[in-house]
């Protein structure tokens, strides 16, 4: 076969992880003609390598491992007859008009030009790497991101190293600390820049289980080792995250695992002018996860980094519902858009715009930990008490349609101590 295949759909979903699969399944259930694309060899995104439990408690009302969560969504997609391509690399999105968009992708089955009414962009996120967090020094073998180490171990069955230092105490780093320890490696330390751990409480427990030291307010600044990592230099930081001279020490190791956060993958969206929120790193979205380009929706870690796959899948479904409404009405119906604004101790939040046409879940993160707080939306007189808020734990709060409708132009969310 040669040349360009031209095909037509109601909605093209870009990304076959939990957000994309949930979106594709929902879109199909809503009667839309849907195409799902993923650049990996298999569907599921990162779920097939996340072999630990803790997934699906909200979405499937049952605790599953990552591969099981992916399997359920994949099975449903296949039962419904969702068209999909794996090993499909999307090269370009074009936005000709509100209901005419083009997705160009290449795959082992050829090159395709898809004409579609809507797009759901669910390309996920990438990991921050060593150079982005100021680690300098030798570039020997043995430096991995947590996800790379996870792929090696839990997809290919290859042990990346034996003497491990983990940089960053986010969930993936802690989960990899456990995987390494279970497989008999020596996890020598988890180094965290901030004065508090980055992961969920249940994952911090892991360190205790395996007696792994956690160094808070510390950073790795240098790697030594010509052919293979031999040791790393660690230094203490003050409350302004400045290095404290004289506190340096070395840890011997053969492997450095970087778990320093995720960055939404938004390249194809920014190429066509979608507006990005600097706080989330993802696109600006309304309450149906439509970006600033009409008919182009986004969901999952492309929009903001989530703690739970359940919320990612929920966002995918919402975007699919958005695509359906968009096609039926030639746009998302609203009287006017109400802006959701960040107030005190709110670092990020989505959606950015509310229509007042439906109940909405607000996803937000605080800037710093706080106990005994009230979350307030002053313009609509809504308040909610919470015993504790932490930057590592995303807040998900429901605002009712009737309450949203009370606002004129904007609603502020603030988290204040009682």
């Amino acid at each position, binding site marked *: 076969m040669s040349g360009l295949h031209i095909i037509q759909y109601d909605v093209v979903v870009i990304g076959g992880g939990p957000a994309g699969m949930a979106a594709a399944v929902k879109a199909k259930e809503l009667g839309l003609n849907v195409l799902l694309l993923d650049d990996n060899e*298999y569907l599921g995104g990162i779920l*097939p390598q996340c*072999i*630990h*439990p803790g997934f699906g408690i909200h979405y499937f009302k049952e605790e599953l*491992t990552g*591969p*099981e969560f992916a*399997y359920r969504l994949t099975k449903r997609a296949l039962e419904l007859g969702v068209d999909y391509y794996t090993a499909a690399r999307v090269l370009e999105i074009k936005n000709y008009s509100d209901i005419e968009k083009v997705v160009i992708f290449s795959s082992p089955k050829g090159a395709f030009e898809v004409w579609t009414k809507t797009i759901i962009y669910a390309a996920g996120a990438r990991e921050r790497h060593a150079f982005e967090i100021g680690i300098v020094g030798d570039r020997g073998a043995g430096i991995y991101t947590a996800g790379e180490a996870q792929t090696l*171990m*839990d*997809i*290919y*069955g290859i042990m990346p190293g034996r003497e491990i230092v983990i940089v960053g105490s986010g969930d993936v780093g802690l989960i990899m600390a456990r995987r390494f320890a*279970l*497989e*008999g490696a020596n996890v020598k330390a988890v180094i965290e820049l901030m004065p508090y751990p980055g992961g*969920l*409480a*249940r994952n*911090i*427990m892991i360190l*205790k*289980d395996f007696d792994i030291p956690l160094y808070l307010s510390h950073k790795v600044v240098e790697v030594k080792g010509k052919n293979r990592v031999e040791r790393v230099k660690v230094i203490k930081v003050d409350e302004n995250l400045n290095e404290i001279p004289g506190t340096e020490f070395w840890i011997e190791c053969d492997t450095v695992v970087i778990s320093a956060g995720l960055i939404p993958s938004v390249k194809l969206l920014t190429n066509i002018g979608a507006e990005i929120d600097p706080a989330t790193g993802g696109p600006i979205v309304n309450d149906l996860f439509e970006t600033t380009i009409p008919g182009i929706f986004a969901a999952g870690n492309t929009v903001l980094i989530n703690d739970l796959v359940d919320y990612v899948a929920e966002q995918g479904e919402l975007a699919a519902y958005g695509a359906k409404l968009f096609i039926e009405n030639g746009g998302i119906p609203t009287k006017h858009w109400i802006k959701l604004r960040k107030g005190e101790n709110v670092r990020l939040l989505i959606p950015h715009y509310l229509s007042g046409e439906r109940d909405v879940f607000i996803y937000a993160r605080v800037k710093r930990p706080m106990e005994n707080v009230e979350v307030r939306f002053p313009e609509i007189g809504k308040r909610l008490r919470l*015993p*504790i808020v932490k930057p590592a*734990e995303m807040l998900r709060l429901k605002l009712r349609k009737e309450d949203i409708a009370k606002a004129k132009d904007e609603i502020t969310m603030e988290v204040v101590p009682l």
Partner: protein
Amino acid sequence: MTSRVYLFTCIVCPLGCTLEVEMDGDKIKEVKGYTCPKGREWAIEEVMNPKRVVMSVIKVRNGKLPTVSVKTAEPVPKAKIPELMKFLAKLEVEGPIRVGQTILEFEGIKIVATRET
């Protein structure tokens, strides 16, 4: 009798209470810091008989992927885990394997596949 104090962050819910269990020899003397009965129960279980669901991967011949991910069908006593991991590391199984399939048993504990291969 020796007295020991165990400290945990409770993981029953996102509150993350700091739990303290004071032991007098092998008996529980006092549990502090919990804000619900579930937390208290969990703290006691954590001291007396800590268990974990264990997950790992097993090598596969003739599968779509080189490994299959597995979990124990029930939580395993913590002390048993290193032995179980060594047992799993030596295994190699034949593909294809279905999700939910019991691959084998280790001392009566079912090892279940969580990924298709």
